[in-house]
């Protein structure tokens, strides 16, 4: 993959020959599994098709989701992205601004707001001091408001990012921007890029899973975990709560496990006859897919059954079996990582505290903080205790932050702000107990350590062993990548 033309040629070949190879969903149905599915003779002939293809295209792996070596030494193997949908207010959670208190109720100095674009502000809004109590915690001295008491336990486990910048200030485009590097729908998401680059180590689960909690789904919906122009094999699979986490996982009523075994056997038997007749390796792929589907029917519910966890763990997260919540999803994310899933994306809504009757800073910010505080911290600590944090990146943050100026609707709130927001990252070789970036005294712009969403994306890929400039896909004549034509690895924040 060192030269663009060859990348392109290989991509094109890979796309064209993809159908020649065995496919699976998160598991290697390679030649080994083939043996158990086909008679020796059939396996030989199917294998010949396979190896002939492999010989022609040495770069084409046996399967799009089989694990692939990274570009360079990887620090991390997996990602859990805790997406706080709506845009959490960094000014009420992570950065105390005494000057903002001093100038509460005044218009911001024009020089601070010049050239900035806001979604709803009309220019007459005045500065709004946070009503929260702040203190510094841990050796790093990160500020936290009283809304996130559990975060005090992880201040020194986490790399704090302040002064993060985005390009777009509406929810849908901004969410797409963080997830796909572009504000328009139609590009692959970070999880898709990651599984495209690295494959997956999950034996019987998808490589990229999406979990959701909160009153509704995140704005822009499935375009956030779309594989865009990458093959759909790389698309995020949304898991649902309850006994049927994957759509159509449950058999129809009356179809017992035993009957399903016979059903799958019969399908395979007739498919094999067709394979013999027409010799299309695609049929062998389908035979394998049915085997995989059959095993997923037991492995996925097993994964979802958090009652298997001991009470101490459940308590640490605040998780309750059978009661869907963000806490349950955090615990599920850990269970997925343990089973080799490459990328788990959690979405939790709604952080859009404009000040409306049902989304204000007085009642609703404290409520949602309570929903996520404990489990977010518990996830980091749990991964650490299990020795998984070193190889797992945990990201916490949303599509943008909120303005220092208040927005007056029915209650108090803040507007979208894209010039200086905060996130935290833990594990996976990111520096722990490290604070990067600082914003001005009002919190309108960064004064040091300014960084852009594309930089964070480049750094996340870097830690996974992927070069964001080399992880490309040729589409409509152009090499596309997660970071478009931007992004630089933030070497300051990784060790």
């Amino acid at each position, binding site marked *: 993959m060192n030269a*663009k*033309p060859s990348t392109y040629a290989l991509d*094109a070949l890979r*796309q*064209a020959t993809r*159908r*020649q190879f065995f496919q*699976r*969903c998160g598991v290697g149905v390679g030649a080994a599994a083939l043996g158990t599915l086909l008679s020796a003779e059939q396996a030989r002939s199917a294998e010949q*098709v396979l190896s*002939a293809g492999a010989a022609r295209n040495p770069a084409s792996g046996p399967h799009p989701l089989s694990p692939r070596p990274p570009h360079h030494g990887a620090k991390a193997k997996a990602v859990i992205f805790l997406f706080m949908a709506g845009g959490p207010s960094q000014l009420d959670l992570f950065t105390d601004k005494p000057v903002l208190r001093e100038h509460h109720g005044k218009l911001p100095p024009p020089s601070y707001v010049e050239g900035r674009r806001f979604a*709803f502000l009309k220019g007459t809004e005045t500065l709004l001091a946070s009503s929260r109590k702040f203190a510094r915690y841990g050796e790093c001295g990160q500020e936290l408001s009283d809304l996130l008491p559990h975060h005090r336990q992880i201040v020194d486990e986490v790399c704090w990012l302040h002064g993060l910048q985005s390009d777009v200030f*509406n929810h*849908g*485009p901004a969410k797409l921007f963080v997830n796909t590097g572009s504000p*328009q*729908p*139609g590009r692959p998401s970070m999880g898709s890029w990651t599984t495209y680059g690295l494959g997956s180590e999950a034996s019987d689960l998808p490589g990229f899973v999406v979990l959701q909690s909160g009153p*509704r789904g*995140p704005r*822009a*919906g499935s*375009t956030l975990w*779309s594989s865009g122009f990458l093959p*759909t*094999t790389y698309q995020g*699979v949304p898991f*649902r709560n309850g006994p*049927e986490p*994957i*759509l*159509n996982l449950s*058999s*129809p*009523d*009356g*179809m017992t496990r035993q*009957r399903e075994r*016979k*059903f799958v056997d*019969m*399908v395979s038997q007739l*498919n094999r*006859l*067709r394979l013999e007749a*027409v*010799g299309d390796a*695609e049929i062998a792929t*389908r*035979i394998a*897919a*049915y085997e*995989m*589907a059959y095993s*997923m*029917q037991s492995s996925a519910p097993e994964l979802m059954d958090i009652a298997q966890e001991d009470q101490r763990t459940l308590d640490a997260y605040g998780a309750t079996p059978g009661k869907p919540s963000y806490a349950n999803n955090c615990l599920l994310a850990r269970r997925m990582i343990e089973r080799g899933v490459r990328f788990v994306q959690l979405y939790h809504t709604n952080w859009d505290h404009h000040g409306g009757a049902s989304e204000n800073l007085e009642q609703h910010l404290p409520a949602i903080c309570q929903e996520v505080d404990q489990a977010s911290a518990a996830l980091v600590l749990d991964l650490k205790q299990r020795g998984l944090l070193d190889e797992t990146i945990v990201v916490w943050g949303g599509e943008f932050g909120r303005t220092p100026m208040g927005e007056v609707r029915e209650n108090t709130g803040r507007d979208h702000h894209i010039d200086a927001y905060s996130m935290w990252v833990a594990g996976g070789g990111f520096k722990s107990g490290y604070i990067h970036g600082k914003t001005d005294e009002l919190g309108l712009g960064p004064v040091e350590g300014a960084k852009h969403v594309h930089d964070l994306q480049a750094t996340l890929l870097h830690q996974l062993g992927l070069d964001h400039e080399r992880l490309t896909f*040729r589409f*409509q*004549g*152009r090499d596309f990548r997660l970071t478009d034509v931007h992004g630089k690895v933030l070497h300051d924040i990784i060790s």
Partner: protein
Amino acid sequence: MHRRPSTVRWLFASLLALLMSQTPGSAGQAESKIDFARDVRPILSNYCFKCHGNDEETREAGLRLDTAEGAQADLGGYQAIKPREPATSALIERITETDPDLRMPPADSGLVLSAGQIETLRAWIEQGADYQQHWAFRPIVRPAIPVSKPTSAAFEGGARSPLDAFILRRLSEAGLAPSPPADRATLIRRVHLDLLGLPPSPAQVEAFLADESPAAYERMVDRALASPRFGEKWGRHWLDQARYADTNGYTIDSARTMWPYRDWVIDALNRDLPFDRFTIEQLAGDLLPEASQRQLVATGFHRNTLINQEGGTDREQFRNEAVVDRVNTTGAVWMGLTVGCAQCHTHKYDPLTQHEYYQLFAFFNSSQDVNSAAPTVSVASDSQNVRLAEFDRRIAEAKAALAEFDRKRDGQRPAEERSDGKPIAWQVADLESFESAGGATFEKLGDGSLVVGGKNADSDVYAITFASPTARITALRLETLTHPSLPKGGPGRAGNGNFVLNDVAADVGDASAAWVHATADHSQKDYDVRGAIDDDPKTGWAIGGTSRANVSRTAVFITQPLATVEKANVEVRLTYGPSPAGYNIGRLRLSVTDAPHAKFQLPDPERERLAAALKKLQEERAAFAKSIPAAMVMRDLPTPRQTHVLIRGDFLRQGDAVKPDAPAFLPAMPESAAAAEDASTDESIRTRLDLARWLVSGEHPLTARVTVNRVWMRLFGQGLVETENDFGLQGTPPTHPQLLDWLSAEYMRSGWSTKHLLRRIVCSATYRQSSAARPDAQQVDPLNKLLARQSRVRVSAEIVRDLALAASGLLSGEIGGPSVYPPQPDGVYAFTQRRAAWPTSKGADRYRRGMYTFFMRSAPHPMLTTFDSPAFNTTCTRRPRSNTPLQSLTMANDEALFEAAQALASRLVAADDDDPQRIEHAYRLCFARLPSEREAASLLEFLKQQRADLQASPEDAQAISGVADKDPARVVERAAWTVAARVLLNLDEFITRE
């Protein structure tokens, strides 16, 4: 340079390998002549053009290698390329340079030329460094049909179409023979799946197999082409490119009415609307002279762009996004070009400058829609038009009845009190004195009105006098007027510009006006103007409650005729308050008239009944008209927007102004047709209509090639040009360039008849080949680019559903109409932004074809997504075809598909009595063929086991069969067959076009 012989051999081997890898199957035709377009241009394009290409901004050292002039320019004593002299060509020197600091491409580019590529460049220069225009930009010339040489390779039964000769030539060059034709059962299923997306019925198969005439196949194809299902199948392919969906996209993603456009596409394909008309109507139907409703609906093509309804959006930003998408989609769909690259900078590889990109942008920049559903056009069906006409007839009747009533009532009056039919003559009162009980002050304006100032008391009475301009008074008119001095401009003095007039009185001497009625051009809800004459001080007239609150309003108060003498003193008192406080009028003018009562339409129970009946009809008509879909269409502004180059594509950073025009590397576009027709315009601004006509002029080198190639792709699984969406320099060259041109020329010759083109291809021997694997061709042509066989192709998402519904007999045949909501798993919509409802369809709408499923962009029906349907946020010219366990779970467990298995079982059990017959019937329904002995035997055994198993579990049998039947044996029979039917629907063959 010293070179060892072994290096030469190695280089030669690499060169050979390179040629082989670039032109699969070329092993048999060792070519010594280097072809610029095929061999050299890709190397220059990939390795050099980034810094030495078309883009001036990024050009290094003043050297451009994309034109012969540039490459051969004198650069001060040397030139990059000296034809026939590789040794003195600086290019060769630099790419073979051993000093890494001097070698090209530079080390930091990460690009490394292989020895084979270097040799190709050297050989090309030695042969004269001929720069030829890129193949796809050359004019289309109809090539001669190859004369087949005597060879062992030939189609069984002979070539059936001129196009076979092109295929045979390449095959025989590669030493390959074509495959024998597929058996006839496979052929009819193939044709039906390809042309209609539905399986042939057992009767259709039987008739075809029984038809022994030589033209049986062609007749079968013609029948398929005439089926209305054709428009659905090929319409769906087009809708992919049109990025058709039923919602607006982005975050709110609410529903839009786009299905009339979908139905237009289906209809256009069914009537074989020539592709040039098809193009013009979709790109510019609104600009055609006297555009029909249908032509307007066709412009929905470019209304499939997204609309961002999120609060706080910058509408101009998303208008701009839509224009960008229209440019890029037009480039991809008609020209197979990646014009989008030039949005931010001049194209690195293709000869498209950023300036030219915005020339294309300018065609689409003047449409009226601004991140909005409007403009729309109402699309009434025939039956709806009948109902509308019925409404209009009844409304006319009701109006006539009312007029008749007025005429009769008038007739009963004395002659002088009748209406003369003329408008009421009002005399503006010349106000003499004006006093306020609450301390307000008055200023008289030139138009006779009073502006009120001073104290705005909680309650007030304005006493105003004037000399009567008439000898009697039948009505008083009060105009409340706006004025800049009033809050929000008035006409009231309350903070919102409103007022409440609680009472109005008028006296002439001892006589007081006896009000009989009052009317106003607008009364606020619960503040009817009659409240001002009802003697109840709590009721009154106000004018709020609309979005236009601050406008002048008029009330008329009708009194029993008040006899006065001319110039008699009249006093009018206007009373306000005290609640709400301060709601006094801010500017007013008074007039009187002596017009007879007949002119005022005074209330009357009978008249009111008639008027109410009319109003009800009018409201019903309006409500009905609202239920008639309004299709989103393109419309241009009367004056075009000025288009600018947007620097780095940022809509906030405008560069040079540009006008609509074609890029220079493509044929020139004629002057604007509209300007030629419209003499009043001296400036010639081209429009979308000019663009559309240019695309299908016949001169355009891309439109026909790109379109024909996609048709080919859908019939063979891959195009003659593999990169069907990139015909530019970075794309792959065609495997059969002459065949592509022959088909393109034939397409245009036939008058752009898509059905003709399809018939040509589908009737060829190439198409009819068996798709079985060809081990002998594996080595030479692993990707089957030479077409020594047909391909097995998994059908698209919608067709997977259609096949199951058709085989089970559940399929509804209805074409078109609003999208439907077949069952989908619970909770798919729970996480959408709007938590949208999925009103699961009932009755036949549960079983409509997959293409009619309501398509929500942010949460498409999961079955569609699982089988690779994109979300249609952007154009989709080719869908991927994956093969995953999620598909297996869907086929096995999805509610709709399991229901199909149950229905198929019931169909089979009802039709035949024994298993062997039912198995045969099932195979005919599902695969259009009979089962092999081994298949039949396997299924028989399976059924036997299932029966035994299910007999022991009657409850399971009941659940599986889905039928309530008192006879347990019948239940078991249905259950066993449901399981067997489910097996058949889950076979690879079921969802594969063989």
